[in-house]
């Protein structure tokens, strides 16, 4: 289900000794994944400074929802690196197809502008550390892991 427009998705960073944890929450897996993507961008720059000038389509499939989150963040990290872009807005759909999970998404962003974005640090990859993706006890969905910077 695409992430609803309107209020910004809730995301946050959490502590890791050497690096940064990214966490997204939402009413669905798709919302939580979109929010985690905003948290990923926030490791590099203020996501509200990134203009949605260009759309990039992303699709990943994995055997589990947790692996799907790692694949999603890795796909974004790859797109940021090879396109020299930052992304600030995400539309995400997560579906279960048989035994596998599939994510299709559009990420909107723009080329890195050092003077405006003041990018802090490159992200090297998503990790399995503190990896969690799924429903929470309180009813919402969570998507989180530590990213290596």
């Amino acid at each position, binding site marked *: 289900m695409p992430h609803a427009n309107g209020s910004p998705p809730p995301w946050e960073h959490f502590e890791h000794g050497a*690096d940064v944890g990214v966490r997204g929450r939402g009413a669905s897996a798709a919302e939580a994944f979109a929010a985690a993507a905003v948290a990923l961008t926030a490791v590099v720059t203020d996501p509200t400074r990134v203009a949605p000038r260009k759309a990039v389509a992303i699709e990943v499939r994995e055997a589990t929802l947790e692996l799907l989150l790692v694949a999603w963040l*890795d796909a974004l990290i790859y797109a940021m690196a090879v396109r020299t872009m930052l992304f600030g807005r995400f539309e995400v759909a997560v579906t279960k197809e048989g035994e596998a999970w599939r994510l299709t998404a559009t990420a909107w962003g723009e080329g890195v502008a050092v003077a405006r974005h003041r990018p802090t640090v490159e992200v*090297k990859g998503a990790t399995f550390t503190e990896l969690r993706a799924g429903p929470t006890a309180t009813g919402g969905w969570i998507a989180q892991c530590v990213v290596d910077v």
Partner: protein
Amino acid sequence: MEVDRFEPVEEGVWRLAPEGRMRVPALLFASRALLAAMDDKVAEQLAGVASLPGIVEAAFAMPDAHWGYGFPIGGVAAFDPEEGGVVSAGGVGFDISCGVRTLLTGLQAGEVRDHLERVADALSRAIPAGVGSHGSLRLTNAEMEAMLTGGARWAVARGYGEEADLERVEEGGRLAGADPAAVSERAKVRQRDEVGTLGSGNHYLEVQVVDRLYRAEVAARLGLVEGEVVVSLHCGSRGLGHQIGTDYLKEMVAAAARHHLHLPDRELAAAPVDSPLGRAYLRAMAAGVNCALANRQVLTHLVRRALGRLFPGLAMDLLYDVSHNTCKVESHPVGGRRRRLYVHRKGATRAFGPGHPELPPALAEVGQPVLIGGAMGTASHVLVGAAGGRAFASACHGAGRAMSRNQARKRWRGRAVVRALATGGVLVRSPSYRGVAEEAPAAYKDVDAVVAATEATGLARRVARLRPLVCIKG
């Protein structure tokens, strides 16, 4: 960490006896204060490493150890393929062959201080650093393959540096066994524009002055003179290494059940050395090592060119180049016989002692230089490997973080950090004040205490301390 949970084996060496699935003990090298300051996760992760098949002797932690991914950063572990030993993508990490190299300049500190702003600006312009930066090289597919198999040798053959540099790089500048076919297309695409770039985070280029000698005779053999200036850089295999880590970590996790591996932590992702996946990773990792060596070699050329314009006639000999995220095949005596082991050093530096056969003749008597980077604005150190080769001839790699990036950002403002360092005589050039805040000196452990513990426990011997004058951050 609770110090009492460890058995003190000798001064500065602490043992965690095997329990649960651990096949060998964990041994931590640290002063009581450093051990107490370590995260509990270090012991937990060492226990996980100690449970992997084929591990030999112990899972080791260096004095700068901190919470990593599966392996602690500052972790050392060796595996014997004859006993079902594994190679672990997590045990090498995302930044394959990240390391430090130091160049001698022969310049007096005063000569450089007189032009410090110009030096900082020239290096800042010459060295592509930070998010979105590209190198001036764009590699064709053929050149990418040549770089991945040739390492620093490839760079020197293309005019980036001198033949004499190569004997001052581990493996003579090129790790054998690299196979570009084991590296994904995505990794190669990610690297296409990144050769000769510094990166970001804790990577840096520093102009430093030799401010203290611990062993004058060894220092002289290495060309280190008190009051003279050196240039050090810290970076790794850039996008290519990160992508190799990403690709193989995932594959190793997926294949763990097939290999009958119990992974206490998915980040400990490993595969038997003698398996198609293990062998493929080793070939890809060697390509990643070569990428890092080529990258540091190209950066060396850029530094020489930039400083050569300001100081005509300047010769900048390479002191040494070390890598601290690797898995290398080495021969070590264990249990009365020499064994061929796969030695993982994750945030740990190789430290061959005097007389080691792999050292070039000029270094044979003094031992391998061990280059330890401090945090931004704090000291760095040059050590040499000690006789005895403890922990499979390994030493620490840096200061190690004492607090997270989030905590650092909340505590300091980048602009104020830059100002404070300038007042103390260190010029910082960085595109990001937030990045500077996250790398604030006090966010790291005291590097002087780390190297003191490294020496006290016989891992390596201190030679010189280096104090920064200019720091270029990504």
